[in-house]
């Protein structure tokens, strides 16, 4: 566990800005232990919570992943697991090997909503591009809830699900095109980015050939300590 002061700072900063960056946070710890010291791990329906994100060429990946779709090119802005009814609340990215040339980009989804039209985004329905557990759920781009709401966005994995959905997806896409992103580079071992996945969109810059050694650990948290 981290000390109370740091825990409080992370909670407050993440609530205020939608993300928190901690430089060289406990590089001595295993990834999963580092994540557990910051919050409670989310229970996922499949696989391990900890994933190792390394650049992959399109050809060596599968089309159900961003690497299979975009390869080492830019990954577009998205929220993780947007096709789930309740995506994981927080996303934690932790640097093992980093490069200045491959920053993580962030944008505040709430600003994008205001830009695109709050009412439209709240009424916009979307659906996953393929069934989830054999069903095609209808989802809202912004689903209000007791914690403020869940904003979801994925231009590949989500499709419009209603007339307002078409409109909302179009307007939100336009707002993304016009946004000025926050740039955060995970450079040194332990550099950690905690992202509110119900609010912030994130993206990855293209990976130049000489940065192929980039290695980031990703974990999902359901709450912060």
């Amino acid at each position, binding site marked *: 566990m981290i000390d109370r002061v740091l825990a409080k700072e992370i909670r407050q900063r993440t609530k205020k800005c939608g993300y928190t960056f901690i430089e060289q946070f406990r590089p001595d710890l295993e990834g999963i232990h580092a994540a557990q010291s910051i919050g409670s791990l989310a229970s996922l329906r499949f696989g391990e919570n900890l994933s190792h994100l390394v650049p992959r060429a399109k050809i060596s990946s599968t089309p159900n992943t961003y690497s299979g779709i975009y390869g080492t090119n830019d990954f577009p802005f998205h929220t993780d697991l947007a096709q789930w*009814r*309740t995506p994981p609340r927080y996303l934690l990215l932790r640097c093992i090997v980093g490069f200045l040339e491959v920053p993580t980009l962030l944008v505040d989804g709430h600003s994008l909503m205001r830009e695109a039209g709050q*009412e439209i985004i*709240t*009424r916009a*329905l979307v659906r996953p591009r393929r069934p989830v557990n054999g*069903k095609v*759920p*209808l*989802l*809202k781009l912004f*689903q209000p809830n007791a914690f403020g709401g869940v904003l979801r966005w994925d231009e590949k994995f989500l499709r419009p*699900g*209603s*007339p*307002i*959905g078409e409109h909302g997806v179009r307007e939100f896409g336009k707002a993304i095109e016009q946004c000025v992103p926050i740039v955060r580079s995970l450079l040194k071992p332990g550099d950690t980015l905690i992202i509110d996945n119900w609010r912030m969109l994130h993206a990855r810059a293209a990976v130049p050939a000489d940065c192929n050694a980039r290695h980031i650990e990703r974990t999902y948290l359901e709450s912060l300590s």
Partner: protein
Amino acid sequence: MKQTHTPGDIADNWNADAIYAKAERYVQKMQTTEVDSWEYALWSSLSLELLARAALANVNPVLLAETGKNWDSLYQSLGYTPKAERFSPKSISTNEVVSRLRSIFEGFTTDDEKFCIRHTGKRNSELHSGEAAFEGVDKANWQAEFYVTCSSMLATMDMSLADFIGAEEAAVAEKIIAAWTDSSAKAVLGDVEAYRKVWNDKDAGEREGLVAAAKAWASRQWGHRVNCPACTTVALVQGEAVSDPTQSLKDDEITETQHYLPNQLECIACGLKVSGLSKLTAVGLADRYKKTQVYDAAEFYAPEDEWGDYEPDNNER
């Protein structure tokens, strides 16, 4: 003690957010059709049913599950996976859904319930019979009530009409509701005036007889006594309970009180009948009333006696 069999996510067929999203999808589809067309009315009825189900699931998904023949649907609505072969979830009927909403939420009135039953009934005729139930139906006959009922359902989820149909359309809906309320009030006031005229035309002897009969009738019936807005004779208002009963004990007597919201008036002297809270509002008889019943404490707490009509058991006789 530790729970060893924990539930997972609630399946979409019981999930309030999922059901609401579908209601929203249908209402958006409705908004793409011509307002005077049968398709507009059909989509509105489909959306209405889902909105009702979302409102009930938002209280608890379990309330939607059909529990008649087996418990598999109930079990699934709790977040578990039934083991039954070829399991197909079953939910309660729309009529039952709106009946439960009326029982749970004070703001969801008998008028709302009746409209839901009527509108979804037409939907059934449209979908399951050769009847073109929505063809030629004037929107003036249902649109305002549709919006009023949607508002009542949305309020149970802390939402507004603007959240559901958009701010622009909600502003139009408010005007439609205001106009309908006004015309509805005028209609009922017209009825009251007509009954008053007929009453005043009766001779004094006949009126006296009817007043006496009405007093005797009212004293024998359950209901809240009021003065008839047409003839001023004692009339009865009936309603729906809108609060939990509260009991107090004094001198071996239990006094039970409960608040009711009126939904119909009947006067047997002049024959006036008014049905629905909105119409009772127009004649000034929509105030809540309190029903008080007094029981003997022993009677109130006594266990139910299957042979209560007989003397106590006595095998000596």
